[in-house]
């Protein structure tokens, strides 16, 4: 007997009522029951009796459910389907909660993009010089010299050191020297081009550094004097489409150099980028067998298994056996002994520095290019990680805050037979999906931001799309971030007890918020920390820019390479002065910004015994011309400036305050005389003859190096033959016009020579390029950290407001004002931000002091800065919250209260 439609409908409804609802089993059980009932009906039973007989066979409701549960559990063991199911549900949930998903994706993708860029950056920094085949066997000489109160940590070694080491130390396979002499004017025939990356190098350069040579023989390339090796970049510039090998280039208008090799342009991640190597054989200075002059950057390739410490010990012996006797001759004659030398606080030590440490750990006098402190590499990594954590916290907070909404889902799922592990997997799937979407967006963001970052950090980073590892790492990172963000919410949510959840007992949401509150505190503590850091860096930069330097860096134009004018130097200077645009001018290479000329020599007060070391004072001796002090705006505080009215000024000297102190003058400075050894003109010291100068004035101390260093003694005297760049002080505000005037004169008097100039204040700022860069990068980071943190706060407030709609409605009905409700809603988070501020301040204080310890001259970091950062964070957070709070507070209470 067939069942009627009504009977079937009844069965379907009844089974549904008994809880048989799962896809895949519901239909099957209905059919089964129907078939069985039909069978029973054959026994002439009433429908309802037949139905109950069948149900009894199943074991009534409990048995039915048990069957369903078992089927579901078998189904759940199918991993593919289960994953698909997790995926579908996750997607559905994310779509349903599109506002929160958006906040999460936005935060995570910003965080990931930053992390991504930083990882690329750090990877690049750590890859410096690793491309050299023998990289781990190459060492550089580091010299630690103390003399006459001056301390030099530098890379310059004596000319004989390299040769001696290569010859006498069995550990050394090859040793080479570099000598930099600034930039060169280079031409093929007529037009000069200024080349900055030019260096004199020993012939074994290609043996030590495995730079691929494209044309020419690397072993013989740099042997002959007047031969040069050039990079491919340079070859392409001077000889486009031609064979460069064997051709000639003219350096500084007077050196004809034959190209003997063309090598592959050095990669960006090398600590030097030489484009032209000049054979050292042509440099007379390199042939001197002296130990007392340090001018050569020296590199050594050690044999395999050689112990660098043994080489260092041998270097110490070289200093005692070879260098000291020479120095003794100059300094003290008979009276000299090593013990006395050291007792006077002097020191001469050469050590080895591994090539691979140079980029991240070395910052000495004589670096070819500025390096990058490893501490900043770590700092940046930490910041990137923090931003990522802030974004992950957003995810955790929003998930747990919204847990009330999902508690019922969890309850039902558990009742239906879900294990906790299923739920954990479900929630993790959601977060992984989210992190996948964010990762893809992050790569897009990083791709767009990279040119900007490259510009800021002066690097050439790119996304390694062609590396297969890249995709693996991205995938791995996606999983890690997904799990990191999802693990806490998933365990939190899946722990709900179905009975209490379904009864409605668990009123979760904002109340169970200890962990959530701590996470918000953490987010804002990190943000405030970054803001304080940024402010401190900017304040120090500002301090540097506005510090009284002892000279006036503004409105000074420096014309470089004046030697290209040849004999027209003075004519050029006079012509420019006649144009009326300039106030004053001076011709000298000794300028108060780093990177200009320096010259250090021992002097003593006349009458004292130069044989006694204590009498010797190591000072900068700067040869200048008449208008030097006036042009640079230095201040004479005692005596007078040089003047044409006094013919005797050719033997006059002006000291800075530091020099006055170093010589030990007390009140009889003016008129005193100081002396130094004469020289034979080629740098060789003449101990028989002294040069004596009479003090006519004292100039206020002026900073001529970075503010990280103290002002050291300087003496200024007139040069009989002024050389070097010409500095002009100008009045006009129209700098373009000034430059055009000067350039026109230059073209007239030095045709074919490149016109190079700089402004003194710009060069001054470039001494702090690293600091400026740091300020900008940290500034951007802290801005983004706050944006991400505020995104989270925004969503959390939206959620609280939503949760408390009814409460707000009732409060309004009872007469609460909009402002009091806004206050009520913001108060909770306001407290958290205050706690964050209290936590962040000491850490920030410690960090700032750590950073400032390098500066001899530093700004005061007062409480104001901290308060400012705290208030700023608070205001930004409050603005974020107030949008939501205000919307909630100004809503019509009728709407929120009319339905229950």
């Amino acid at each position, binding site marked *: 007997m067939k069942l009627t*439609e009504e009977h*079937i*409908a009844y069965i*379907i409804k009844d089974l549904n009522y008994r809880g048989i609802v799962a896809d*895949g*089993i519901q*239909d*099957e*059980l*209905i*059919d*089964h029951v*129907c*078939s*069985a009932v039909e*069978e029973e009906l054959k026994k002439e039973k009433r429908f309802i009796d037949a139905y109950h007989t069948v149900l009894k*066979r*199943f*074991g009534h409701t409990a*048995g039915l459910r*048990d*069957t369903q549960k*078992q*089927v579901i*559990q*078998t*189904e759940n*063991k*199918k991993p593919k*389907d289960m994953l698909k199911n997790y995926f579908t549900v996750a997607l559905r949930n994310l779509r349903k909660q599109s506002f929160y998903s958006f906040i999460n994706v936005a935060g995570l993708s910003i965080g990931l993009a930053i992390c991504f860029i930083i990882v690329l950056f750090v990877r690049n920094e750590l890859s410096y010089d690793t491309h050299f085949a023998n990289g781990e066997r190459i060492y550089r000489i580091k010299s630690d010299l103390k003399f006459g109160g001056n301390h030099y940590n530098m890379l310059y070694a004596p000319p004989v050191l390299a040769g001696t080491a290569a010859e006498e130390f069995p550990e050394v396979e090859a040793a080479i020297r570099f000598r930099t002499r600034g930039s060169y004017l280079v031409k093929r025939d007529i037009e000069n081009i200024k080349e900055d990356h030019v260096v004199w190098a020993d012939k074994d350069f290609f043996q030590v550094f495995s730079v691929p040579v494209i044309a020419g023989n690397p072993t013989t390339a740099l042997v002959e004097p007047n031969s040069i090796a050039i990079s491919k970049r340079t070859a392409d510039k001077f000889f486009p489409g031609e064979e460069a090998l064997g051709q000639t280039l003219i350096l500084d208008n007077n050196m004809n150099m034959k190209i003997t090799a063309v090598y592959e342009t050095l990669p960006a991640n090398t600590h030097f980028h030489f484009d032209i190597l000049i054979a050292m054989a042509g440099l007379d200075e390199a042939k001197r067998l002296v130990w007392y002059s340090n001018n050569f950057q020296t590199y050594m390739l050690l044999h395999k298994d050689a112990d660098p410490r043994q080489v260092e010990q041998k270097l110490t012996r070289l200093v005692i056996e070879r260098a000291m006797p020479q120095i003794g001759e100059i300094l003290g004659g008979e009276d000299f002994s090593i013990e006395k030398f050291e007792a006077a606080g002097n020191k001469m030590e050469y050590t080895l520095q591994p090539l691979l440490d140079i980029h991240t750990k070395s910052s000495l006098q004589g670096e070819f290019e500025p390096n990058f402190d490893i501490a900043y590499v770590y700092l940046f990594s930490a910041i990137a990680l923090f931003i990522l954590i802030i974004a992950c916290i957003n995810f955790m907070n929003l998930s747990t805050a919204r847990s009330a909404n999902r508690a019922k889902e969890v309850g039902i799922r558990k009742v239906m037979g879900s294990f906790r592990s299923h739920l954990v997997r479900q929630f993790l799937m959601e977060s992984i999906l989210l992190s996948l979407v964010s990762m893809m967006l992050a790569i897009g963001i990083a791709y767009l931001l990279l040119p900007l970052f490259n510009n800021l950090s002066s690097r050439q980073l790119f996304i390694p799309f062609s590396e297969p590892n890249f995709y693996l790492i991205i995938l791995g990172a996606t999983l890690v971030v997904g799990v990191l963000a999802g693990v806490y919410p998933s365990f939190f949510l899946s722990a709900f007890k179905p009975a209490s959840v379904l009864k409605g007992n668990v009123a979760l949401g904002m109340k169970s918020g200890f962990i959530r509150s701590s996470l918000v505190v953490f987010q804002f503590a990190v943000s405030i920390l970054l803001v304080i850091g940024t402010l401190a860096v900017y304040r120090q930069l500002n301090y540097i820019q506005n510090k009284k330097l002892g000279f006036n860096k503004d409105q000074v134009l420096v014309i470089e390479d004046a030697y290209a004018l040849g004999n027209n130097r003075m004519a050029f200077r006079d012509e420019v002065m006649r144009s009326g645009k300039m106030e004053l001018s001076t011709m000298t290479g000794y300028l108060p910004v780093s990177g200009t000329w320096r010259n250090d020599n021992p002097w003593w007060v006349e009458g004292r015994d130069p044989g006694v070391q204590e009498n010797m004072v190591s000072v900068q001796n700067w040869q200048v011309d008449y208008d030097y002090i006036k042009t640079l705006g230095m201040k004479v505080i005692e005596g007078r400036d040089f003047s044409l009215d006094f013919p005797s000024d050719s033997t006059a000297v002006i000291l800075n305050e530091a020099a006055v102190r170093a010589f030990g003058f007390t009140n009889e400075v003016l008129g005193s005389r100081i002396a130094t050894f004469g020289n034979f003109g080629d740098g060789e010291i003449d101990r028989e003859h002294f040069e004596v100068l009479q003090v006519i004035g004292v100039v206020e101390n002026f900073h001529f190096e970075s503010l990280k260093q103290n002002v050291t003694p300087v003496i200024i005297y007139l040069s009989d033959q002024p050389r070097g760049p010409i500095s002009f002080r100008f009045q006009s505000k129209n700098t373009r016009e000034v430059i055009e005037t000067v350039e026109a004169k230059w073209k007239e008097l030095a045709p074919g020579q490149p016109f190079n100039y700089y402004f003194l204040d710009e060069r001054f700022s470039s001494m702090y390029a690293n600091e400026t860069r740091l300020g900008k990068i940290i500034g951007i980071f802290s801005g983004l950290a706050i944006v991400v943190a505020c995104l989270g706060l925004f969503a959390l407030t939206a959620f609280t407001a939503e949760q408390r709609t009814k409460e707000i409605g009732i409060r309004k009905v009872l007469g609460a004002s909009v402002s009091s409700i806004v206050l009520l809603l913001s108060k909770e988070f306001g407290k958290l931000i205050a706690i964050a501020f209290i936590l962040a301040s000491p850490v920030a204080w410690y960090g700032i002091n750590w950073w400032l310890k390098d500066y001899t001259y530093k700004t005061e970091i007062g409480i104001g800065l901290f308060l400012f950062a705290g208030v700023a964070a608070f205001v930004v957070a409050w603005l974020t919250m107030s949008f939501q709070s205000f919307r909630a507070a100004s809503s019509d209470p009728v709407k929120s209260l009319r339905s229950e």
Partner: protein
Amino acid sequence: MHSPELLKGTLQTIVLKVLKDNGRMYGYEITQRVKELSDERIVLTEGALYPALHKLEAEGMLRTETEAIGKRVRKYYSLTPQGRSLVKERVNEFVEFIKTMGNVLQVNIG
């Protein structure tokens, strides 16, 4: 009627063999067929049958097709080639088991 405890381990074998002999069947049909074959001494409980069917399906031994009959939807099970090879294996295994049991229990099994 045989005790369900004894049946537990043989459920899959029974289902597979019945499907092999009869081709396409739905759940209720299987229970009826088994009842018939065993002279009503073996009654498959639904609570065990359906999970077993779904498990075999998940393992790729069975395939299913559904047909709508009015308001009801009927789900038919049949063997996949993989399932077909499993049947022989399972039946042989069971025969061996019976023999062993005969030896263990010291009885002669027909």
